[in-house]
């Protein structure tokens, strides 16, 4: 900070030096700022305590141990209304993580595909993608969630449409007798792990390892001799064939539990509930629109010489895209992509609009309502989101560092 080069004359310290002397001034400013901030925080907390005492409310987290008393539609772990509020919060947290993770994956896929399509030479496709991007970016997410939810419940059949009518035919039927799309959710067969099915898992892990080794070998061969081994089909075969063989050799240890129409609803199988579907789709399409623009900007940022050079070397356009352009574009793409992932995670709190039981709906919704513990619930929820954001930023930073230009 100090811009003086010659040593200052020795003088006794005077108070005014704290302001006029650049050596001390920065210290003064910091101390004053710290004091002001501390005073402000003290003021807020003092007010809080005074207000709470006046209202006779002791901050306490003991309500988390009492019986929740409400039911939750989508749960990843066993839960009944006799469980505690803490467990309900936990169910909510897992649901938030689920929709955030699903959303991030789908949004990335949509974003990359649409981003490439946006730059396509096909006029209609690129126009359509522009319409998609502008349409989603310029209308509030909440509206999209509500609209997509309504479209889902209005346009898909009800479970009872699957039941044969008086004339013996049903209004709707399942796809291959295993998938059903209803306005309550999407049903699909669930795997049932029989005895010795863990051997299948071991075989699969082994084939992943084998595929990895093959890839390394092919790369080595390419660098050493210049011979290009086929990649896609062999890896695919290595991954699939042993597992399928093992499956039949072991006598089909894994069976499928098909969804069946029982009573009011389908039972069995895996159900992806309608609120989850709607929220997932809305979040992914909305965030995907932003990612599309990021991908587009990233691809455009790679100088034209790169693709021309690749073409001059005889690399086909598709390979040039995946080997030359995308890796370079990634460096531009990842930082803004991180903030989109964070946005998606935070936006998943809009789940309350469609009744998806995320943490905002359980801990910050029904629990808060039933117990009246606003301060505690908000605090816990804030901390959870903060921690989640920090974790995502951290992971993305690692990825970003590994993508950085490695200067040799």
């Amino acid at each position, binding site marked *: 900070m100090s811009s003086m080069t010659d040593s200052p004359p020795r003088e006794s310290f005077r108070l005014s030096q704290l302001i006029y002397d650049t050596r001390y001034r920065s210290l003064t400013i910091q101390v004053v700022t710290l004091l002001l901030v501390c005073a402000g925080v003290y003021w807020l907390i003092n*007010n809080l305590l*005074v*207000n709470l005492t006046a209202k006779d409310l002791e901050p306490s987290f003991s309500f988390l141990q009492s019986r929740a008393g409400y039911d939750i539609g989508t749960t990843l772990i066993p839960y009944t209304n006799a469980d505690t509020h803490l467990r309900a919060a936990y169910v909510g947290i897992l649901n938030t993580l689920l929709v955030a993770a699903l959303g991030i994956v789908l949004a990335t896929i949509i974003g990359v595909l649409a981003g490439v399509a946006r730059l*396509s030479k096909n006029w209609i496709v690129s126009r359509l993608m522009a319409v998609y991007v502008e349409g989603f970016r310029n209308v*509030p997410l909440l*509206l999209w969630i509500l609209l997509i939810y309504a479209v889902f419940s209005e346009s898909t059949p009800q479970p009872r449409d699957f039941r044969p009518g008086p004339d013996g035919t049903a209004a709707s039927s399942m796809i291959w007798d295993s998938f059903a799309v209803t306005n309550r959710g999407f049903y699909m067969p669930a795997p049932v792990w029989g005895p010795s099915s863990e051997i299948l898992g071991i075989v699969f892990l082994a084939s992943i390892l084998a595929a990895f080794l093959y890839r390394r070998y092919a790369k080595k061969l390419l660098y050493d001799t210049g011979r290009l081994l086929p990649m896609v089909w062999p890896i695919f075969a290595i991954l699939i064939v042993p597992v399928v063989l093992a499956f039949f050799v072991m006598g089909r240890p894994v069976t499928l539990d098909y969804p069946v129409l029982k009573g009011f609803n389908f039972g069995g199988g895996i159900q992806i509930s309608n609120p989850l579907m709607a929220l997932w789709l809305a979040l992914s399409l909305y965030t995907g629109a932003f990612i599309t623009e990021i991908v587009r900007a990233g691809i455009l940022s790679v100088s034209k010489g790169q693709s021309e050079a690749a073409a001059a070397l005889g690399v086909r356009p598709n390979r040039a895209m995946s080997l030359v352009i995308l890796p370079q574009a990634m460096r531009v793409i990842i930082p803004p992509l991180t903030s989109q992932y964070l946005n998606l995670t*935070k936006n998943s709190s*809009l789940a309350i609009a469609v009744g998806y039981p995320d943490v905002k709906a359980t801990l910050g919704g029904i629990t808060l309502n039933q117990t009246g513990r606003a*301060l505690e619930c*908000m605090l816990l929820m804030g901390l959870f989101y903060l921690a989640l954001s920090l974790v995502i930023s951290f992971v993305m930073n690692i990825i970003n560092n590994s993508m950085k230009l490695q200067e040799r």
Partner: protein
Amino acid sequence: MSDTHAQTVAFVREGMLDQQPPPTREAGTVKWVRENLFPTWLNAILTIVSLYVIWVVVSTFVMWAFSPTWNATSLSECRQMLEELGRSTETACWGVIRDRWEQLLFGFYPSDLYWRPTVALIVLLAGLGPVLFGTFPRWFMGFSLASPFLIFLLLWGGPIWLPLTVALGFGLGVVAFRVFSRVNQIVAVLVAIVIPLLYWLLLAWPLASELARVMPIGLEPVQSKQFGGFMLSIVIGVTAIVLSLPLGILLALGRASNLFIVTKLSVVFIEIIRGVPLIVWLFTASLLLNYFLPPGTNFDLTLRVIIMVTLFSAAYIAEVVRGGLSAVPKGQYEGANSLGLSYWQSMQLIVLPQALKISIPGIVNTFIGLFKDTTLVLFIGLLDPLGLINSIRASTDWNGIYWELYVFVALLFFVACFSMGRYSLHLEKKLQREHR
């Protein structure tokens, strides 16, 4: 030369051939279609799929939207009208828009005073002119500075003395600074902060009420409870962005400074605000903010929301401005230092003008995001456009209506956000040109 040719080659064309038209498949529409729509098999399939999607969406929408129900006064009347026409009752009922569009725009603002928010919007756009377009006469800056007070007066009404006395505080600050800066810079800054604060806390209110008693000039007061619809979204969005600019700039400077404690404090504030969803902050504003204020104080919910959204957007603005600060070439900082300018002088005269100019598109984008996010206030009981939709659907006349209102609101949001987005794009391009 021509002789040699005549001897060695059997035939040489003497004159030029007339230009032939290109083959049909290489010209005009056909060529365009071939190159742009069907260059490869994959593309052809994509084109056909796209066309089909467009057809389905457009035809469904048109079939639904084309419905002569503009004059209906209730949903049942609509259904009756459609039945008489032999149309499906699943088609749109636009009567609800005719009946309620004013409400969706202005909320519960008194209907004879609708001109006030309208004029306020015009004042806002005019006031933003110099900031956004940059080619206005200098006196116009005065109007820009006065416009917040004018807008406040127009929206909330009340005696004109309150905005005037508050504005006087800023004037006092400037005068105090001018006077004391002859004596000492640092003292001047302190005085320029302390005097207006003392004036606002102790003098402004008695002065304003006294003036209002003596000369009751003003507009009919309107409570912020009566704000609603798009007006509410715009008021929350614009106020929050404008108020958060100074705070955001300070935070950005703090984060970029080399004072350890200041940097860390700024980082903590920014990351906490950005790490938590807006909806949690809104619930905090609605349920908890009162607990953090001295006992007995009680803000209007709209005001609490504005405070919270201001803090929220300050963190985002700070990040945008930080980007702007780091985009200013290092030579500029060094140049300022070498001229012997102090930190504040170099920031004020050299760095910030450039950084802010670079940040304007980012700020506009932040505003677009914030404007869209104002719809979340429906969860805490404020009647923004989406909140009003719920209320309208609860009235006996329009119970059961759905798509029409959402389509209308979505369209308005689209128009507003799209044009702002285009504008920020235009700014970005202009900046790029100027930087070359």
